């Protein structure tokens, strides 16, 4: 979707404000850590995948997405997904008191402290069998298709319609546009190099390039 989350090339957001690296805490507020942990642990129940999480965040109301801090976005999307999945009812969210039971099959998957310590990160692989042979090889000129899907996509607006060169073929990965709807299929994934001037016009620095990972369905051969 052409949402406000698709920030590449946007202007007017002001300067980057880096904190000195040595002074930056892991979490700036205690609640941010709790949100992070809830998202990770509920994510471990495998009731939704990463693309669904991303889409839940990017489809928050645009004014919220822009005004919220990072973990506020996570929190708002988590609440939305909990209700939409039926794990939590609107009523429970409002009252803070449990009034519905969770199925045993789900409770069996609840992550425990020892599992977290043994494997602090999910080890999900996104590789999937390819639907067919790869259409492109490194060096090929390709155009990022001018698509404007309403749903989730990982083809940023700023590359659409522009011509680049295949830098690498990364094999076949889960195709995010379908994955966000729960359909998990492999699609060839490429890293595509775009000259900065191809993307941003004549005023861009001539000695810059942007490398973007793009699935085969996002690409067409360019002359």
């Amino acid at each position, binding site marked *: 979707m052409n949402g406000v989350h698709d920030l590449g090339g946007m202007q007017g957001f002001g300067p980057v404000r*880096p904190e000195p690296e040595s002074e930056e805490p892991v979490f700036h507020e205690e609640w941010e850590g709790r949100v992070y942990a*809830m998202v990770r642990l509920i994510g471990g129940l495998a009731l939704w995948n990463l693309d669904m999480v991303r889409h839940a965040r990017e489809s928050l109301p645009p004014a919220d997405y822009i005004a919220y801090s990072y973990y506020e976005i996570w929190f708002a999307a988590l609440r939305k997904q909990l209700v939409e999945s039926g794990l939590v009812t609107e009523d429970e969210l409002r009252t803070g008191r449990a009034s519905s039971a969770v199925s045993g099959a789900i409770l069996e998957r609840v992550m425990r402290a020892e599992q977290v310590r043994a494997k602090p990160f999910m080890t999900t692989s996104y590789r999937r069998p390819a639907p067919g042979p790869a259409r492109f090889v490194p060096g090929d000129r390709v155009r990022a298709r001018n698509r404007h899907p309403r749903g989730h996509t990982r083809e940023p607006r700023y590359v659409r319609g522009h011509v680049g060169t295949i830098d690498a073929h990364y094999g076949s990965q889960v195709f995010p546009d379908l994955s966000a709807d729960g359909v998990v299929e492999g699609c060839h994934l490429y890293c595509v190099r775009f000259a900065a001037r191809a993307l941003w016009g004549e005023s861009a620095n001539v000695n810059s390039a942007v490398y973007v990972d793009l699935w085969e369905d996002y690409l067409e051969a360019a002359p």
Partner: protein
Amino acid sequence: MTKDHQDDTAPPSDIELSVKALESLLVEKGLVDQEAVDALLELHENEIGPSNGRRVVARAWADGGFKRWLLDDPNGAIASMGYVGSQGDQVRVLENTDDVHNLVVCTLCSCYPWPLLGLPPVWYKSAPYRAQAVADPRGVMRQFGSEIGDNREVRVWDSTSEMRYLVLPQRPPGAEGWCEEELRDLVTRNSMIGVEEAQRPATTQTP
């Protein structure tokens, strides 16, 4: 976005109360194990962070054979040091040279090599960085005090897939003969994202 820690005596904010309420609810429903929350946060506060990335870079600087392995087969080389996992199952290492400088961003969200660098800093996840990095990387780097000459190509890597990018900064001059452990102190997290070069020995504690 980067407010200071609240005064302990200040009343909790709305978001603090909402988060506490949801956590209690999820614990009550059995969906979240309180001990697992604490364990995960404890890991992040004390163990997870950019030190894994630092070790990988320092080893590449100290050992030419490892460096070649890291560039040719990053997943194999990194796994040999024991680091694997979330969103780190496919890593590509980008070598900075005299001719090329690399910079990593995720314009669509906040993809980042967690197992190597920990959670991303606030600025990496912020709209200004996500907006500017792909269109004006030199301008972004200036905001970190880094100046990249026009004769050096700047390559920006937008993490749109589950491939994760790690910048291998150039080994700074003035650290000749340093061992791997000493070199680690020159590897900043920011240099592995690419917004800065690695530290020079003069600007860090002498090992």
